[in-house]
Structures are given as C-alpha cells and as structure tokens.
C-alpha cells in the first residue's frame, strides 16, 4: 500500500469513524450512563432515517428533516422510557434481562411497523451533498461524509457541554453514579433518567438522517447496527461522549485502512479484534472509570 493511499484511507477512516460515533452517541447516553439495555437504539435510528425519507419526499433537506424530527423523537423517548420504567424498571429484579427482552420487542415492532408502512425496499434520499465531493488537492472527499463528520462533532460538543455545565446534565451524570445519593439531594432520579433517555432518542432523529444520507436504508438495517453501535460504546467506556468519538475513529480508521489494503474482507474482524484487545487490557473501555 503506498503512502498516498494510506493517507487517504486514514482521512476516509476519520470521516467514517465520526459517522459511527454519531450513530452511537444516543446509545452511549442510554446504555452507558443510564444503564438501560437499549437494544432498540439502532431501530430508532432507522425510524429517524425513514422520518427523514418521508420529509424528503416533501422536498425537505435531509439534515433539516433530522433537526425538525428531534422534538418529536424527544417526546417519543419520554413515552418509551415511562412505559419501560412502569412495566420493568420499577419492579426491580431481573431488570436487565427483562429490559433486553422489552427493547428487543420494541425493535421488532418498529421494524415491522416500517415494513407495513413502507415495504421492504431500500430507500435513498437526494440532496446537493449526496453523490458529490469536495477536492482537497488531489484528494476528493464525499460531501455526505463531511456532513457526517460535522454532525458528529456538533452532537458530541453539545452533549459534552450540556452534561458538564448544566444542572440537568450534571444530574444525569450523577444518576449514573449513585441514584440514591441523587434522591437525597432532592432530585427525582426517574424524572432525570426519563429526560436523559428522551435526549438519547432525540439524537436518533439526527443520526438517523445521517444514516440515510450516508447510504441506502431498509427497515431491517437496524439489526446490522446493533453490533457496530454497541462495539463503539463498549470500546469507548460506558457513558463517555468524547470516548465514543475516539472509539468511532479507531473503528472507522481500522476499517478504512483494511478496506484499502489487501484482505478487505477482514475489515469487520479487525474492528472487533481491536475491541477484544482493548477490553483485555482495559475491561472498562478506553475512557471508562
């Protein structure tokens, strides 16, 4: 592999890694911080992608569609968490296992609902930044990947600042560490978790828009992203926003270099191999405590 190709593969990997981070940030919040076994997260991404597709048919730009759907997804997230809390979390024992079953059920309902509504065909959207590229010297970079990069940086920055600087943000971090202590401080952990889960779901609207901007989407696509998103979140260390970006970058760059070199078929094995090695050395993940 010559140096120029390697350099280009690293740049592509950075962009791809940011995309992986963007689609994993919501999960990092829900699973990493709140300890909710949110297997349905990729299905919510696909739901966001189809919402973008629907608005796209009305002529709305995909990115704008993702932003417009965020409040709707926020409310949806509130409702899902409330239901999950009332029927599972509140009852205590075996919450984890039953929670996984619950979110698997939610994922299937979302998938089947999308099939009934849209059929099983793959859907694409059109926008000026899809199918075009920007030239940096001799190198051409797909604009859709630049958009993914920008959105990932934006969501990470906003979430990091929100969690560090605002009262509710700090409460979300606190609920992840010690729910009982938070209750003693006069805050309602359930309300905080509901709010945080809603934020995680709202990010799915924008990340879902990225999903359909980057490639074709069908109702069953969520299944393929279960492995990728959980891999990013676990590699990052549960609940770390900046760690999620770093983990996404590691996987994206590894995948991109392997694809550009001999043995492209090994790309997923290399990515998951990295996960195994990191967990062997640091069981809590790169940025886990």
């Amino acid at each position, binding site marked *: 592999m010559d140096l120029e190709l390697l350099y280009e593969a690293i740049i592509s990997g950075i962009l*791809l890694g940011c995309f992986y981070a963007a689609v994993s940030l919501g999960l990092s919040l829900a699973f990493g911080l709140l300890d909710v076994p949110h297997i349905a997260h990729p299905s919510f991404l696909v739901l966001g992608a189809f919402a973008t597709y629907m608005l796209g048919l009305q002529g709305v730009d995909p990115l704008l569609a993702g932003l417009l759907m965020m409040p709707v997804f926020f409310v949806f997230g509130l409702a899902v968490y409330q239901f999950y809390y009332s029927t599972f979390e509140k009852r205590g024992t075996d919450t984890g296992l039953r929670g996984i079953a619950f979110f698997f059920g939610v994922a299937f309902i979302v998938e089947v609902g999308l099939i009934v509504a849209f059929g099983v065909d*793959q859907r694409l959207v059109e926008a000026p930044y899809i199918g075009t590229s920007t030239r940096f010297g001799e190198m051409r970079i797909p604009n859709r*990947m630049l958009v993914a990069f920008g959105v990932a940086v934006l969501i990470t920055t906003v979430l990091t600042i929100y969690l560090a600087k605002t009262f509710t943000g700090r409460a979300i971090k606190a609920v992840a560490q010690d729910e009982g202590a938070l209750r003693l401080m006069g805050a309602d952990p359930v309300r905080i978790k509901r709010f945080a889960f809603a934020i995680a779901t709202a990010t799915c609207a924008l990340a879902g828009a990225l999903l359909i901007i980057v490639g074709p989407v069908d109702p069953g696509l969520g299944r393929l992203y279960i492995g990728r998103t959980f891999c990013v979140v676990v590699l990052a260390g549960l609940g770390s926003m900046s760690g999620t970006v770093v983990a996404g970058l590691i996987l994206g760059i590894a995948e991109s*270099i392997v694809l550009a070199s001999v043995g492209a078929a090994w790309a997923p094995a290399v990515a998951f191999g990295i996960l195994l090695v990191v967990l062997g050395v640091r069981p809590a993940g790169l940025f886990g405590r």
Partner: protein
Amino acid sequence: MQHTRRKLLAGASALLAATALAAPGAVLAQGQPIKVGIGIAQTGPLGGGGKAALLGLQMWVDDVNAKGGLLGRKVQLIAYDDQSNPAVTPGIYTKLLDVDKVDLLVAPYGTNPTAPIMPLVKQRDLLLMGNFSFDANAKIQHDKWFNNAPWGAGAVAWGGTFLEAGKALGGKTIAFLAADAEFAQNLATGARAISKAMGLQTVYDQNYPPNTVDFSSMIRAVRNAKPDIVFVASYPGESAALVRAVNEIGVGSSVKLIGGGMVGLQFTPIMEPLGSMLNGFVNFHSWVPEKTMDFPGVADFLKRYQARAVQEKVDPLGFYLPPYNYAIGQMLEQAVTATKSLDHKMLADYIRKNEMKTIVGNIRYDAVGEWATPRLPMIQFQGVTDKNVDQFRGPGRQVIIAPAKLQTGNVQPFDKLRK
C-alpha cells in the same frame, strides 16, 4: 361354517368401513387445492426483490384459478418469509413438505437461500423450480432442478459478455471487486476464469465484507491500480453505495467499463434516486423495455403488475423478477396440463424434453437444469437524468449491448457517458 360366515361378515364390514372412510377422502382430494410452496425473502436485503417476485407468482395463481385451476382443482400458494437468511430455508422447506404437504415447490429467490435446500430436494427426489439462482445445482447435479434464470450454467453468459464488451473497448487490465458471499463469489470466480482465458491482466482483486458502509477507500485503491475494466459483484445496498462512491471519488480515466454483476441496479427504488450517477455503468438485467425483449404476453403482464404494485408497496416497474416468477408458474401449468399429473418424475421429464412457453420467451433446459440457451441482457445506462422514474418505462435508457441477438445499441466508454 359359522367361522367362515363370521369371517365373511367381518371382511364385508371392513370393506364397507374402508369404502366409507375412503370415499369422502377421495371426494375431498378432488376438491382440495393444488398447493404450491415457496420460501422467499420478504424482509432483509433480498426482501425488495422477493416481495415483487412473490406478487408475480401470485398473479399466475390468480390467472390460473380464473381459468378454472389445474386438473380441475384450484391452485393455492403457500409462502413463507426466509428473511434473506439461508440458515432458515431448510426448515421452511421441510415444513412446506411435511406439514403443509405442498404438491409443487418453487425455490427461494437467489443463490444463497437456495443452496441449503438442494440436498433436501435431492434426497427426497423432488421437482424444484429454481428462482434466479446461479450454479446452485453445479455440484449437487439433481435431475429434477429447473432454474428460471436467463444466465444459464456457468459464468460465460454473465462475465463473458461483460468482459467481451470491455475487450471491444480496448481493455487489457482488470480489477475485481466482489462481496464476500456465495452468489457474488460464484460470479467473480467465473469472471476471473474467463478473464484469464481472455488474457486480461488482473491489477486489483478484493473481496469486501457484506454491508460495508463506505466504499471510498476501495474505490481509491481501484483507481490507484489503473484498470481498464472493473468487474463488480455486489448486493443492492452495496451496489448503490458503490455507484455513489464512484461518482464522488472518481474511478480514474483508465476505466472504460465498470459493472457486470451489481444486484440492485435493476430495482426502481434504487435506480430512481441514483439517476444520472448510473450513466455509463454496464450491468446484467433480466428484462428491459427494449424492442428485442417484447415477448408475447410480457407487456400485458407488466401493465397488470404495475397497477397492483403501488397498492402492494413493491417495485413499481417490476422488470427484474416478477415476469420470471410468473413464468415459473406458466412452466408448472404447462407441465401439469400436458402430463395430467402431479408426479414429480413425470413433470421433470416433460420440462426437460419440451420447450416451455412463457412471457419471458421460450425456454429449453440443459442437462443440469439451466437455460440451454442463455439470454442475459447486459445493459448500459445511457442518457439517464435525475428524478424521473418514467424514463425507465420506455426504451433508450437501459440499452442492451450484448448478447448480439438482443442488442439494441453499442457499448460506450464509461468516461464518455459521464460527461
């Protein structure tokens, strides 16, 4: 004497009982529908094609029932979703045979889900109508397998016509880009052998993992290798991603021909949004609205299909799979009607020895149950514009460049059609 009379009475009673039991059964069998079983993708990556294909088969069932059915019995279609997952097809076909007791079998759409059921049908010595498989019977050599796919046995009709077009454009070097899955690998292996026989020099050869998200790195590597011809064997989502990546990154001015085995570029929901990005790509198809493919009945079928497709939320044009699935039904109808039987050996003998008349043309089968005379159109996208599904309804946008019998236009260098 007493003993004999008792025996006689017992025998008569048994005979009466048997008659009483058998008679309604016989009447019931007469009235029971002929069951046609299929496991076909309704979800997953092959679901889009599978749904459209199933509608084509269902339309044949509706048509044959409207004519009074087969052998005086209605035809019933029993279909299960194989979820595009080859692991579940043996279970589905065992259920179709042992629980649903189907009379006739149609294979799943595609090679990957079909391969696992080949040992089952061979072991039970059953007739199986193949459904767009590629060389699924090459190793098993089952004598009751008849694949309805226009490419025939081996990769000659497929890779051969594509590579000949590349050579005609002056191609001397080639790059291979194939998904790491059964069908794509079969295709690429065949194309590699033909390429070697043609004396083309391989400058790049990579398999990629299915469901790859971004192909930028691979397209850069291909461009770096400076091939004249790029042979691609890919699945729907990846095909769309590859077309986009080629448009964004550029595949290099050396490339005269690109495509070959890209599944998905035949499906309207993928073709429409890609629009002008498709120009120059050469790819296989099964049917396009060009004058050389106007077989009797196909226009009427497509008109009726397209009217139902919108309601059923399937491919609105339906050129690729639906006519061929309707044709599978027509072949079963022709064989059952001619032999007046549902016996699989008789049906297989009939299909092997006779010409099948279908809406996708007349078909004869070879010894391994593939089309004896392949008729695979290799098309080139020419003059495609953006946001216009109707442009694909008529001739001129998917020009047939090979084989000569179907040809409606000449292949153009990739670069020329991109400008």
